């Protein structure tokens, strides 16, 4: 990921966020068997593999008329929940929090980024200790994933038609054991750490606000259909219901063969690095033509939960409380599992059809649009949460949420640390769209 910021007197006037990697998954998927989609799409992203698996499964099931047994729903929720927890813990400790403390004197942390560190020596030491604890705990979260998912990342458990693993007391016991371990870490270590950072950096709670549009497509349904994360839209401060038909993608400023704003079930993906207006590989997804912020903060706002603000640390705060919420929800789902009951129903209604799979995942809204003809994938389009947050500008020049959040930011550090904090608070997954910052350019433009 490349961040180009135009600075004027230490204030960011304009910012371009560019993804520098194209892999062409949407082209690769064409012509394959729809049953492979959950496995193949997982390979898009290593940290949120099960998110793609579940969304692809939803789409394939809808297209081919498959029914998921209730047990299968629960097992899939458990797999995804453990992966979301894993992602959140890793993101917080590995990527986000190291911006706020000094870290250990070990190789990957050296050289330290020294500017604007406000934690004391003692707090720094305990955060460092927690950093390594968090590695262990996120490992445990992935182990919980593997209980029902086979392996992690890129698990095998989620397949079209349900989940492949049978349910018995042994697995429930193990999953529960891991989840209790995680829950105690979250309550005793993670949440206090986040609160400490918020206490030390109160200005970041509202620094890096988005555009005020929030979106959630809902997720983690229980067998009765009630969602842990409800669906909804907040567009220009107005609450409305979500309809996937209003989602469009534009490629005016991305390196693709140009087409106007199109619904994902109609558009194509033809890379063209020579596009003069292009500056990134991420398309610009919009809802009713507006950029939307997605992620834990958006989910919390739509669910009318408590939020502490709308900026960088507010996102991190929402993310950390979501871990607790999910971990507690998994315990409820575990209780509802029926040992021995079927988890998988592979009966196929038809061999053709088109569908959309939408699910709330780690970073927000993930959508897979596909159409299947005679057992072969004819069309596949994916919109990732990071594309919503960090897409290219659209035809009218409207900036994405990520780019807008940087505007007006005061930069004092040499290495644009302030911008890095804000960008990382979105949890950008830049292999589904972008990577973490690996090069950046500071250009001071003088505007007369």
């Amino acid at each position, binding site marked *: 990921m*490349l961040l180009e910021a135009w600075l004027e007197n230490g204030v960011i006037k304009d910012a371009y966020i560019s993804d520098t990697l*194209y*892999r062409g998954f949407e082209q690769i998927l064409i012509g394959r068997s729809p049953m492979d989609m959950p496995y193949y799409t997982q390979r898009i992203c290593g*940290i949120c593999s099960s998110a793609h698996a579940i969304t692809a499964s939803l789409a394939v099931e809808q297209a081919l008329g498959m029914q998921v047994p209730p047990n299968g729903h629960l097992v899939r929720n458990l797999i995804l929940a453990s992966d979301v927890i894993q992602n959140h813990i890793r993101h917080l400790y590995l990527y986000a929090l190291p911006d706020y403390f000094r870290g250990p004197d*070990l190789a*990957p942390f050296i050289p330290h980024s020294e500017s604007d560190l406000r934690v004391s020596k003692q707090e720094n030491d305990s955060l460092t200790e927690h950093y390594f604890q968090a590695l262990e705990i996120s490992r445990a979260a992935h182990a919980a994933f593997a*209980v029902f998912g086979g392996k992690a990342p890129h698990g095998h458990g989620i397949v079209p038609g349900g989940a492949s693993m049978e349910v018995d007391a042994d697995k429930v016991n193990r999953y529960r054991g891991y989840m209790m371990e995680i829950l105690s870490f979250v309550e005793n270590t993670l949440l206090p750490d986040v609160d400490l950072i918020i206490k030390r950096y109160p200005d970041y709670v509202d620094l890096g606000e988005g555009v005020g549009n929030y979106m959630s497509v809902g997720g983690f349904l229980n067998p009765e259909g009630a969602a842990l994360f409800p669906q909804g839209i907040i567009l220009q401060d107005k609450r409305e219901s979500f309809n996937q038909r209003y989602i469009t993608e534009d490629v005016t400023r991305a390196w693709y063969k140009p087409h106007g704003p199109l619904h994902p079930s109609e558009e194509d993906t033809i890379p063209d690095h020579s596009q003069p207006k292009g500056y990134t590989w991420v398309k610009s997804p919009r809802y009713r033509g507006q950029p939307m912020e997605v992620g834990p903060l958006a989910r919390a706002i739509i669910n009318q939960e408590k939020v502490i603000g709308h900026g960088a640390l507010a996102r991190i705060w929402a993310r950390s409380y979501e871990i607790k919420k999910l971990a507690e929800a998994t315990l409820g789902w575990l209780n509802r599992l029926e040992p021995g009951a079927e988890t*998988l129903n592979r009966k196929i209604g038809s061999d053709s059809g088109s569908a959309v799979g939408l699910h709330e995942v780690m970073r927000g809204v993930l959508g897979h649009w596909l159409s299947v003809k005679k057992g072969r994938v004819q069309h596949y389009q994916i919109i990732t949460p990071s594309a919503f947050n960090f897409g290219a500008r659209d035809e009218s020049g409207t900036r994405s949420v990520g780019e807008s959040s940087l505007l007006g930011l005061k930069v004092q550090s040499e*290495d644009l640390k302030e911008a890095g904090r804000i960008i990382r608070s979105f949890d950008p997954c830049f292999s589904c769209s972008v990577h973490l910052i690996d*090069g950046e350019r500071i250009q001071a433009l003088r505007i007369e």
Partner: protein
Amino acid sequence: MIETGTCTGDSISFDNIWTPTFSDILSNILDWRYDWSMNQAQGSAAYQVLLDTYSKLPNEYILIVQGSMIHSDSGHYDHVAYEQGKLITGIDLVRRIGLKAKYVVAIGSCAAFGGPVAGYPNPTRSTGVQDVLPERRVINVSGCPAHPDWIMGTLLHLALYGEPELEKYGRPKMFYGETIHNRCPRRYYYDQGIFATDIGQKECLYRVGCKGPVTYADCPIRRWNDRLNWPIGCNTPCIGCTEPGYPDLMSPFTVHSPDIPLPGGTKIATDSVALGVLGFTSAAIIGHAAASLYKGRIQRNLLKSTVRGKHRFSLTKVKTFHTYRVKKNAKKE
């Protein structure tokens, strides 16, 4: 560690290592210099670490590459760094750092053989690291993702004992020496001919496309994530993620033989090709036989090739093997 066309799954998998703990690895075993996901410094400061290692410790560092080498548009589909006003492509960086590295380790199937990114039609023309560094040996630690033990075991071997013994595709023999099938706990079912008819069943998954017989890895005895479970333990077939040719030769993952891509973007299953060929031959033979009967060709050929001579011998078998002689008392007709 340089990441190119990757999903970061191998980093995540590496973070899942069970023993030794990650803090032990960082503080006592390895001097982990450069990693996108771990570096605290960002941008050029982080990149400087990589360049310092490159220039100050030539032939002493290990280069770990994750992700495939993207060749499209001479590598410009993948930029990994920014240096002196220029964007550096993944291939350039890997070649530059790799030529001076003591060892080059490619982790994950993408870095080893191209992997899912190189799936048909391979829009980015991706290959493994070995193809961009033909001058030197690349140690492949394949897998999608690679098991943390495979990564760490290989690195530890490199640090302590030098290069491990490699097998045919440049993978350490200690991890990739035997097929999944040979050590599979469900081998009993296979040997007895008891097969699952769909995924999600307890028996041998060979009939639903398990690629265990052609996949070299030690998953059955090592297992994944705290050694809890693994793909076949999850009642799903092995998809052959450690092998070259994955995923095209392995997909559809639930079918035995791979799909064959046809020009024009469509794909066709091997089994339909086979059935088509056999069906065509049988139809052709039956049609030809009918036509021959109708035209009288069969009748004529048979008559011609079996018509009697003027003289019919009476042969008698002699004790010697396969020798006949004319009967003495045979009369001429």
